[in-house]
C-alpha cells in the first residue's frame, strides 16, 4: 500500500504562482555573498534586493548551483485521471494553518471541520470524521489506520513550508495504491532536503489558533547529501457550540522531525522520521472534562537505483508507532511495518511497465472494558496484507495511450482481492486532451468493521441508551465494500491563459456496510447497495502576470438503498446527506506590488441533509508584506462572513457539535541562509 510518488502518472507541478519565493531571494543573498569576491558587487546586491535574476551576468548565473535536477517531466495535461495539484507556494499564499486547511483549497476535496482540531475529509461522497474510502500518503507512506481505514487528521501534521506539493486523484486509484483507494488518493510530497537549505522560522498568533511556532534548519552533508531538521508546536483554542457554550475541544501539539537525502550517480537514498505528541480537550463518557493524549513516531527509508534491469528500482521501508487514548472512551496503540518494492522500465518502443510487491504488518493493542466503553474483541490483533501489482502504459499511437493495471492483494479478513483498471488518454489537439477509465476497487474490512463492541457498565448501563453488558457490533464475516467506476474527463486550453478541466463519474457500490438493528447497538452487515454520480469543473485563469483566478464547481448525487432483508433504516440517508450536492469556490492570488500579495478564497457549500447543517458561504482573505526578501508578515482572516457556522456533525439532545468561528491570525516568516 505504501507507494513511492513515482508510481502515479507523472505530471509537472502546475501553476506555481509567479512570485519569486523567499528561497530565491535568499539564494540570491547567498549568491551575492559567494560571488562578492570577484564580480560586480553592486549588480548582485541589486539583484538580491529586487529578487530579479536577470540582473545577473551569464558568468554569475553559471556559478550558481541548481537545487534539483529534474530528469523527466511530462506535459501538464496528459494524465488520464481526475488529478489536481496544490503547490507548497499556493499553501503558503493561502495561509493554510494545517494539512486539512490546505486540502480544502483543492477542487473536489470536501473538507468540513467537526471540532477545533478534527475534520471530516472525503472525495466523491461518504464524508465522515472516520472517512474510510481514501488512501492518504505522505512521501509514499500510507498514513491511514487499519483501525477504521481512515486518518486521524488531528495527529497528521508536518511543517507546511517543507511541503513541495499535494496531489489529489479523484476516483479509484486502487490498481496502484491498493485497497482503500476507493474514492480517491491524497498524496502529500515533501521537498528533498537539498531544497530546504538554510534556516526558516515561522510564528503566528490568532484567535482560533492561539499560538504557533515552527522552524527548520537545512544543511549539506558532504558533496551529495543534505539534511534538514524541523520542529513545530501549536495551541488551538476551544470552539463554541451554537448556543455559545464551550465545545470541550481544542488541542496542544508538538512535532520534531528530519529528512535526509543522498543523491548519487545511480542511487538515491531518503531517510525521514518524526515524533509528535499532543493533548486534546475532551469529555469522558459521563460528560466530565478530560484530556485525550496522542503520541506518534515514524521512520522511513527509501532507496532508488537507476539503470537496473533496464529501469528503476525503488525499495521503501517504513515503521510507524502511534498511541492514542481518550479516557473512558477508547485507546489504541499501534505498530506498523510497511515494505514496498517497485520497478519501472520501458519495454520496447511502446510499453512503460511498472510492477512491484507490497507487505504490511500492523499490530495493535486496544483499550479493554471496563476501562473503555468502546473496545475491540480481541483486544490485541495483528493484521498482515500482501500485495502485488502490475501496470502497463502502452503508446498505441503518438496521441493515444492505454494503461492497463491491477493490484492483487491478500488480507486477513476477506482473503484475495483484485482491483483492475483500464485507462485511456487521447490528445485530440495540442490544447485538447480527453481520457476515460473503468475501474474496480474494494475497501477491505478493518478492526472496527470486524471487532468493535460497546460496554455499558453495571449496574444501570447508560439509561436510556443501554442496559448493563457488552455488545458486539463488529462482524468478523464482513465482506469488502466494492465499487465499479466509470470516469471520463476533458482538459482544454481555452486560450494561452485559460484552462478548463472537467471530470464526470458514475460509481456503482455493492455490499456497503450496513448496521442491522436486530441487536441493541446494531450489527454490521453488507446489506447496502447504491450508486453515485457527479462532476467537477475547474477553471484556471492567468488574468495578468500578477493575478491568477481558479474557479471550481462540484456536483454530487448519492443514492444508497438497503437490501430487502436489511433492517438498517438510517445509514442510507446518512450517506446520502453527508456531502453537499453543490459546492463552488473561487480562489484568487494577486501580487499588486512586488512586496505585497493578496489572496482570497470564497467558498459555497450546500446543506448537509443528514446533519441539518445549513448551506454556507465563507471567505478567507490574506494580505502579506515582504519588506525584505527574507522576511514576510501576513494578516489572515478565515470564515469572515459569519460569527460562527457549523460544518459537520449532529446536533441533538445528546450530541452537541462544535461550530467554526470567524478567526484572524498574524504570522511572521523569516528565512535566511
Amino acid at each position, binding site marked *: 500500500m505504501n507507494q513511492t510518488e513515482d508510481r502515479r502518472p507523472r505530471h*509537472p*507541478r*502546475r*501553476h*506555481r*504562482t*509567479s*512570485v*519569486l519565493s523567499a*528561497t*530565491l531571494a535568499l*539564494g*540570491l543573498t*547567498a*549568491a551575492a*555573498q*559567494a*560571488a562578492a569576491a570577484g564580480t560586480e558587487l553592486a549588480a548582485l546586491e541589486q539583484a538580491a534586493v529586487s529578487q*530579479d*535574476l*536577470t540582473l*545577473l*551576468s*551569464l*558568468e554569475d*548565473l*553559471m*556559478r*550558481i*548551483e*541548481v*537545487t*534539483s*535536477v*529534474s*530528469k*523527466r*517531466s*511530462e*506535459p*501538464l495535461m496528459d494524465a488520464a485521471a481526475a488529478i489536481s495539484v496544490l503547490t507548497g507556494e499556493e499553501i503558503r499564499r493561502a495561509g493554510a494553518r494545517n494539512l486539512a486547511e490546505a486540502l480544502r483549497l483543492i477542487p473536489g476535496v470536501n473538507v468540513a471541520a467537526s471540532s477545533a482540531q478534527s475534520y471530516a475529509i472525503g472525495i466523491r461522497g461518504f464524508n465522515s470524521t472516520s472517512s474510510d474510502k481514501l488512501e492518504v500518503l505522505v512521501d509514499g507512506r500510507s498514513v491511514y489506520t487499519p483501525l477504521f481505514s481512515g486518518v486521524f487528521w488531528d495527529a497528521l501534521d508536518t511543517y507546511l513550508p517543507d511541503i513541495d506539493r499535494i496531489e489529489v486523484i479523484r476516483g479509484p486509484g486502487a490498481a496502484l495504491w491498493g485497497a482503500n483507494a476507493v474514492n480517491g488518493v491524497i498524496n502529500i510530497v515533501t521537498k528533498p532536503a*537539498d*531544497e530546504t*537549505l*538554510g534556516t526558516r522560522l515561522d510564528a503566528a498568533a490568532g484567535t482560533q489558533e492561539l499560538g504557533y511556532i515552527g522552524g527548520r534548519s537545512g*544543511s*549539506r552533508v558532504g558533496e551529495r547529501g543534505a539534511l534538514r531538521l524541523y520542529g513545530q508546536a501549536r495551541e488551538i483554542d476551544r470552539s463554541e457550540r451554537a448556543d455559545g457554550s464551550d465545545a470541550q475541544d481544542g488541542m496542544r501539539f508538538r512535532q520534531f522531525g528530519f529528512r535526509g537525502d543522498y543523491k548519487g550517480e545511480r542511487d538515491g537514498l531518503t531517510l525521514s522520521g518524526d515524533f509528535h505528541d499532543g493533548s486534546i480537550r475532551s469529555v469522558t463518557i459521563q460528560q466530565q472534562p478530560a484530556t485525550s493524549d496522542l503520541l506518534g513516531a515514524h521512520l522511513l527509508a527509501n532507496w532508488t537505483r537507476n539503470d537496473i534491469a533496464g529501469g528503476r528500482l525503488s525499495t521503501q521501508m517504513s515503521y510507524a508507532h502511534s498511541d492514542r487514548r481518550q479516557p473512558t472512551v477508547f485507546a489504541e496503540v499501534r505498530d506498523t511495518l510497511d515494505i514496498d518494492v517497485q520497478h519501472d522500465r520501458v519495454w520496447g518502443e511502446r510499453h512503460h511497465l511498472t510492477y512491484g510487491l507490497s507487505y504490511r504488518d500492523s499490530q495493535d493493542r486496544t483499550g479493554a472494558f471496563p476501562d473503555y466503553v468502546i473496545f475491540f474483541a480481541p483486544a490485541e490483533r495483528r493484521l498482515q496484507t500482501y500485495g502485488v501489482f502490475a501496470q502497463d502504459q502502452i503508446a498505441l499511437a503518438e496521441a493515444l495511450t492505454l494503461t492497463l493495471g491491477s493490484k492483487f492483494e491478500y488480507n486477513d479478513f476477506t482473503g484475495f482481492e483484485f482491483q483492475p483498471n483500464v485507462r485511456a488518454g487521447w490528445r485530440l*489537439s*495540442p*490544447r485538447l486532451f480527453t481520457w476515460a477509465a473503468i475501474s474496480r476497487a474494494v475497501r477491505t474490512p478493518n478492526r472496527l468493521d470486524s471487532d468493535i463492541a460497546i460496554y455499558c457498565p453495571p449496574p444501570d448501563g447508560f439509561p436510556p441508551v443501554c442496559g448493563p453488558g457488552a455488545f458486539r457490533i463488529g462482524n468478523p464475516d464482513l465482506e469488502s465494500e466494492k465499487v465499479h467506476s466509470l470516469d471520463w474527463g476533458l482538459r482544454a*486550453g481555452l486560450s*494561452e491563459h485559460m484552462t478548463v478541466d472537467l471530470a464526470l463519474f458514475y460509481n456503482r457500490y455493492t455490499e456497503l456496510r450496513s448496521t442491522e438493528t436486530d441487536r441493541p447497538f446494531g450489527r454490521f452487515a453488507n446489506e447496502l447497495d447504491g450508486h453515485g454520480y457527479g462532476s467537477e469543473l475547474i477553471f484556471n485563469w492567468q488574468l495578468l*502576470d500578477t493575478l491568477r483566478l481558479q474557479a471550481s464547481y462540484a456536483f454530487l448525487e448519492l443514492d444508497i438503498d438497503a437490501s430487502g432483508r436489511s433492517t438498517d433504516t438510517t445509514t442510507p440517508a446518512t450517506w446520502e446527506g453527508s456531502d453537499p450536492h453543490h459546492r463552488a469556490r473561487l480562489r484568487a492570488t494577486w501580487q499588486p506590488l512586488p512586496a505585497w500579495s493578496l489572496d482570497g478564497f470564497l467558498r459555497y457549500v450546500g446543506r448537509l441533509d443528514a446533519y441539518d447543517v445549513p448551506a454556507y458561504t465563507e471567505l478567507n482573505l490574506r494580505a502579506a508584506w515582504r519588506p525584505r526578501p527574507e522576511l514576510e508578515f501576513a494578516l489572515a482572516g478565515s470564515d469572515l462572513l459569519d460569527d460562527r457556522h457549523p460544518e459537520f456533525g449532529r446536533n441533538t439532545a445528546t450530541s452537541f457539535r462544535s461550530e467554526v468561528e470567524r478567526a484572524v491570525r498574524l504570522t511572521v516568516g523569516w528565512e535566511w*541562509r
Partner: protein
Amino acid sequence: MNPRTLLRNGLLVLLLAGAAMPLRAAELPEYKLKAAFVFNFVRFTSWPPERLPDDGSTIEICAAAETEFVNALREAVTGKSIGTHPLRVREVAPGDDTGSCHVVYVGNRSDAGRILAATAGRGILTVHNGDSASRDGVVRFFIDDRRIRFEINAGAATRESLQLSSKLLSLANVVSL
C-alpha cells in the same frame, strides 16, 4: 603548542568552518536559473533585420515547457526590453505555429525533436534540453557538477541567420552540426 592553545585554535577552526558553510554554495531552482539564462541569450543575439523590422518590434519568446518554467520566464522578462525591443512570452504546444517566435524554448519532453524540426530555417533561436546536440537546436542546456552550462551549435545558428555575440560563444561549448 600547549593543550589550551590547541583547543582554542581547534574551536576557532570549527567556528570558521561553520560560518563559511552558508557562503559556499549559492543555489536556486533549475527552472528559475534557466529563465534568466534565456533572457541573457536574447541580449547577446542579433536577429536578421526582417525578423525585427523596426525599433519597436516585439521579441517573442515562445516556450513549450513545464508551467513552472513558463511562469518563471514570464516573471523574468515582464516589463523588460532589449534595446528598443519589448519582450513577450508565449506558451506554445506541439503543432502551434511558431513562425512569429524569435526564441523557442523546448523543455525536457519526448516530442522535443519534432518541435525543433518545425522551427528550422525561420530565423529562430531555439533552446532545448536534449541529452545530445541536435541539428535543429541552436542552444542546448546541460548540467555539469550541479551548474548549468550551455552548448551552441554554430551550424544551426548560421542556418538561422543569427549572430551570436563573442561573449556568448566564449562561455559556451561550441559544436557545429
